[in-house]
């Protein structure tokens, strides 16, 4: 893809996002807008993994850990200070610091891909266990009780910066979430075209070559991972503010699996694909949870298996490949274009 086309695509995405942000609250009622806010927040979360996996080549199975840490930090600081701007900043900082610390052990230990995946997974599980065990009243930070399995209730909603007495209404929260989503998207796009972004792609493509050219692979990976952790923390904080509640489920395997499935299904290496997959699959799983016989884990697992086995590049790129291939076939032999064999079966 040429540069100008890439820029055009990004601009189109941003404009679409902006248009949706403005139009949606006009056509939907307040309750629906509140529900869409959740999609937007999860979209930010998706971008965090789409970035570190797609551009950094780091497969993190515990992205939920940073999401949850962001949420818990936000809740604790917001309850103690009764003010959310500082809470938001602290949440991002804590998530980023944790990612940096974990990343130091992984990247400077030169763990291989798979070990890294497992270590991030284990890290998430341990936090999940730890948080679940904080049920007693002795586990409190300031006036915020951690609450163990029940989580932290009554987290203050987002308020106007500098004016704690003035919370935003739900529609304003939707605007803020959208602004953050678009902001994160632009930020990541800027990183992508920067020198650092190109370096991280180089590391992803060929770690040894990048190292031989004199770049510090470990540091680059660590930075990418930390940025991803910070974004996940932001998403977690917004999630806690939106729900006015956070519980250990944020650290659950289901959370980390969900975001992974969204990115995989949408296509690793893009931003828009994972976002669309996030919105679509989230809507799907909400619909599924209304069915009596189905179980969201059953469906999630099924989708993940299907994507890995049949469309390893993701739904959108997979479909795009198929289309390109079909177009080429059409052009070559317009006569018998109807006999299009399935490309996917051949790989097995």
């Amino acid at each position, binding site marked *: 893809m040429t540069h100008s086309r890439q820029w055009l695509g990004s601009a189109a995405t941003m404009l679409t996002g902006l248009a949706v942000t403005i139009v949606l609250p006009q056509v939907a009622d307040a309750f629906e807008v509140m529900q869409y806010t959740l999609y937007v927040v999860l979209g930010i979360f998706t971008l965090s993994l789409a970035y570190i996996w797609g551009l950094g080549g780091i*497969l993190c*199975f515990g992205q939920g850990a940073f999401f949850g840490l962001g949420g818990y930090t936000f809740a604790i600081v917001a309850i103690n200070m009764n003010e959310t701007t500082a809470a938001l900043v602290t949440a991002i900082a804590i998530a980023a610091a944790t990612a940096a610390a974990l990343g130091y*052990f992984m990247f*400077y*230990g*030169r*763990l*291989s*891909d*798979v*070990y890294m*995946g*497992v*270590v991030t*997974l*284990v*890290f998430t*599980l*341990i936090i999940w*266990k*730890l948080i679940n*065990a904080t049920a007693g009243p002795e586990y409190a930070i300031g006036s915020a009780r951690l609450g163990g399995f029940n989580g932290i209730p009554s987290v203050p909603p987002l308020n106007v910066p500098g004016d704690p007495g003035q919370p935003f209404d739900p529609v304003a929260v939707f605007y803020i979430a959208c602004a953050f989503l678009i902001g994160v998207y632009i930020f990541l796009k800027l990183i992508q075209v920067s020198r650092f972004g190109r370096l991280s792609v180089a590391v992803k493509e060929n770690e040894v070559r990048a190292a031989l050219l004199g770049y510090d692979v470990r540091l680059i990976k660590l930075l990418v991972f930390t940025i991803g952790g910070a974004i996940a923390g932001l998403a977690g904080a917004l999630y806690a503010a939106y729900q006015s509640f956070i519980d250990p489920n944020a650290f659950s*395997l*289901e959370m980390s*699996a969900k975001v*992974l*499935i969204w990115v*995989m299904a949408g296509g690793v290496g893009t931003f828009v694909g994972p976002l669309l997959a996030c919105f679509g699959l989230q809507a799907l799983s909400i619909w599924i949870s209304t069915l009596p*016989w*189905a*179980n*969201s*884990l*059953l*469906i*999630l*697992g*099924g*989708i*993940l*298996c*299907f*994507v*890995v*086995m049949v469309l*390893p590049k993701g739904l959108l790129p997979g479909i795009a490949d198929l289309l390109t291939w079909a177009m080429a076939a059409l052009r070559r032999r317009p006569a018998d274009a109807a006999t299009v064999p399935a490309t996917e079966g051949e790989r*097995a």
Partner: protein
Amino acid sequence: MDYALVVLIEVLRAVGGLVLISIGLAIIFGMMRIVNIAHGEFLMLGGYTVVLAGKAGINTWVAMLVLAPAVVGLVGIAIERCFIRFLYGRMLDTLLATWGLSLFIVGFVTVVFGNTLEGVSVSLGSFEVGRFRVAGYSIFIIAMAAVLLVGTVAMLRGTRLGLIARGTMQNPGMAAALGLSPPKIYMVTFGIGAALTGLAGGVLAPITGVVPTMGIAFIAQAFITVITGGAAIVAGTGSASSLLGSVSQLTTFATTPVIGDVALLFVAVALLRILPQGITSRFFRRSL
């Protein structure tokens, strides 16, 4: 003195527990390089086999030591045929696919059996150590772990199947050239790993209880143990279990079980920082 003996037994039990939950994974992940995230679900299926067999009136010991490994071994072979065999050599894809599988199995079992805790009762009584009482089942777990370790060594070292399996994992092309069928050997090896895991699930069921989501409790410890152990399957699992089990159990004695788990993780991560290839990359290198 009595207290020291009780602590020793409890530490050995923790070590034995780690050996049980990770020996199957050591074969599937350590030997075959398949990152089986559904490992915890294999344990869970072993537990459910014991529960269902108990409801059907089958002797608990038969269910635990015969049925659980048989059922889970067959499930493992079915999974290998349907999914894993397409993914050899693509480690990350095995990881993602088995994660999907893991979620799927949890969802499936929840839909079929409901999200309830099932208990299994076996009585081995207890015996006195000075002023303390120790459950007989602790001794059983320690013995089972020892039997499994020795049995795995004997199988890999002493039998033709073990030799063939080890050779095939090292060089499938050469094995095929010698007239063996690597796909069949992969299938059997995966089945054996699954069966050992099912056995462990059955043996642990009376302690943990059985719920669809119980796998999550084990998966982290199992992977950390195998990774910390490194390339040698039995020596790695044994040494990593001994180290991590002792650390977590002694910390548990001093504080709480949760802190014990956290200590386990920290020791493992710190160890991997020093020995990224695991314990057996430096110690016991010639062992199995």
